[in-house]
């Protein structure tokens, strides 16, 4: 009972400190800015991978017809000169010029020169596929596609940013805010008063963690509700946000107690943030993954939240992900308890 009262009073104190120092204001401010960006500024279509353009110089002009039928008229260019000038302006483009006729199909791939050989080989195979389909060359395919579940539509780019904004901010806010609280308590000397109080390490850690989880949930809800509405899937996302925020808070605690002030810790926080953001590359290029990404909690988290918010039919990933995050949190919690005890509260013992 006393322990619970101690925890509640410390939690209330931490929430007041967070409020007075504008943490809630920051959370609201960030959420409002991101909502505006997602709803009104970020376009629904953005091409991040190299842009391919096509010129149809074939006798039958069937290639252009095929691309128009597929709704890809915007990648068609009228001439090779137009393509070359575009490629000179933008080093992120590749051009394919289709020539010849059904009897003698040919194509030229104009590439910048920096593209990997394997990607060009793959593009060459794709060119044959386009010629075969557009020119009705009649070569049957050796393979049959097998779909594990029905094909899903393309997610608009602006909405695809929501899981990313959730994960990166929850990671950074949790890691940074708890450190800020620790440094302020050190600077103001309130940690000395805490050392001689009966409340121990666990109360200290859980109070800070719950404060950050509350901030993360506020941020999550403020971002979700105006962008995707009160969808029932939110009930599945919020536990993930809670555990992720808890994980990052205890990680932030473990690291920050080894530093003297925010002035030196902030550069470490930057490094941690960059590390956690590396899997963003995989998010934008799903065909790309480095094995090390699997070890970074943000990797499954952003894909998982995307799947929950914008389901494509994937199943069986939620519970393993939640369990994994919870297990990582328990390990991080034990490390935090050791670090806080040793570096922050030990003088009282």
């Amino acid at each position, binding site marked *: 009972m006393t322990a619970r009262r101690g925890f509640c009073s410390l939690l209330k104190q931490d929430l007041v400190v967070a409020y007075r120092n504008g943490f809630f204001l920051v959370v609201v401010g960030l959420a409002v800015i991101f909502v505006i960006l997602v709803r009104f500024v970020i376009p629904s279509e953005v091409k991040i991978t190299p842009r391919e353009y096509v010129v149809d110089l074939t006798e039958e002009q069937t290639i252009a017809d095929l691309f128009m039928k597929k709704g890809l008229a915007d990648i068609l260019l009228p001439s090779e000169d137009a393509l070359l000038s575009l490629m000179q302006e933008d080093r992120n483009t590749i051009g394919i010029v289709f020539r010849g006729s059904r009897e003698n199909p040919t194509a030229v791939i104009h590439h910048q*020169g920096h593209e990997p050989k394997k990607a060009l080989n*793959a593009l060459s195979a794709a060119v044959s596929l386009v010629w075969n389909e557009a020119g009705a060359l009649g070569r049957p395919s050796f393979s049959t596609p097998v779909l*594990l579940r029905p094909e899903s539509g393309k997610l608009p780019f602006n909405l695809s940013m929501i899981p990313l904004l959730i994960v990166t901010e929850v990671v950074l806010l949790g890691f940074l805010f708890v450190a800020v609280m620790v440094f*302020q308590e050190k600077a103001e000397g309130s940690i000395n008063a805490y050392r001689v109080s009966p409340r121990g390490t666990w109360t200290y850690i859980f109070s800070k963690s719950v404060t950050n989880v509350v901030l993360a949930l506020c941020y999550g809800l403020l971002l979700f509700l105006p962008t995707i509405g009160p969808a029932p899937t939110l009930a599945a996302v919020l536990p993930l946000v809670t555990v992720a925020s808890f994980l990052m808070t205890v990680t932030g605690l473990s690291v920050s107690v080894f530093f003297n*002030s925010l002035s030196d810790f902030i550069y470490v926080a930057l490094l941690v943030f960059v590390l956690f953001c590396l899997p963003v590359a*995989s998010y934008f290029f799903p065909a790309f993954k*480095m094995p090390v990404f699997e070890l970074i909690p943000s990797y499954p988290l952003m894909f998982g939240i995307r799947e929950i918010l914008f389901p494509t039919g994937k199943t069986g990933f939620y519970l393993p992900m939640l369990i994994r995050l919870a297990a990582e949190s328990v390990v991080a919690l034990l490390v935090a308890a050791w670090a806080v005890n040793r570096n922050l509260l030990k003088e009282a013992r």
Partner: protein
Amino acid sequence: MLRRIVNVVARDLRYAQRENILIYVIAFPLLIAVLLNLFLPSLEDMEMTFALDSTVPKGIAEEFKTYGRVEYHDGLDRLTERVLEFDDVPGIYVDEQGYHVLLEGNEASFVRELPGAILDQLLYGQELVTVKMESHGVGSSLTREFAVILTILGSMITGGLVIAFSIVEDRASRSLRALAVSPLNTLEYLLAKSALGSLVALVLSLASAFVLVGTAINYVRLTAASLSSLGITLLFGLLIGLVAHNQLTAIAATKILILPFMGVPVALIFIPQGIKSMFYPFPMYWSFESLYRVVVSTDLPIAATNVLCIGLSVALILPLIPGLRRAFRL
């Protein structure tokens, strides 16, 4: 005047040295550049991954390696498990009915179509279409160049953080009260506070560019572009110094301000050329443009973009001065 400024800088340097802040300020951003340098080759040579079942003949599996990365899996269950992972990796297996491309259903269209196209190319053995490759001789992608530009702009922000936290430290520790009874005035104080942060920004921008691209760029032009971008460093640092009275509010202000300061350059990478003009009033736009001309379009002059970056930064810093005077009362 100069002596008073030097004294404040020397005091800050002593403090930074004593608290090891200088080591963190220089070492960690450079560590980030080293990390990016390790990560970029994988991103630049990004290739597709194909998951092949053991039923795929060895010869075909070997040939697949000329189109991307190949993973081997034993049995349809394991292959299905792999395909269902979060990344876009198609699976290929063979049964009595022939070759099958196993897909999850949410892959990008090229991931869906490519394995079949490659299989056809390999299994027919002869080209359906005569494809010629024309290289335009551009040696590197823009990925690394953009990484360099963003890292340099990040260095400018890091310098701004040094200024901001130094001011906030003075405000929180009440050193400002002690300075108020010295002959130091607000302008001298701000110049002194800006000196160390600007030096950090300059050193970091040159060092991180060296880590990422070595001697492949003109460092005289880079120095000129970095110097003209220091206005961004000052603007960022002084804005936080003005609004934050302790480290907590400084972090809160940093979180909000980092959005326009780094968001504009990131947006410039992705948005179409036609709408970039909406960012003309931001000094970050002109800094990005200068750095782009240093790193990518090396034949274009940078004088005008540098001048615009300085001019806009000054125009945004000047209105802060009265507020800073009131806040510091020196």
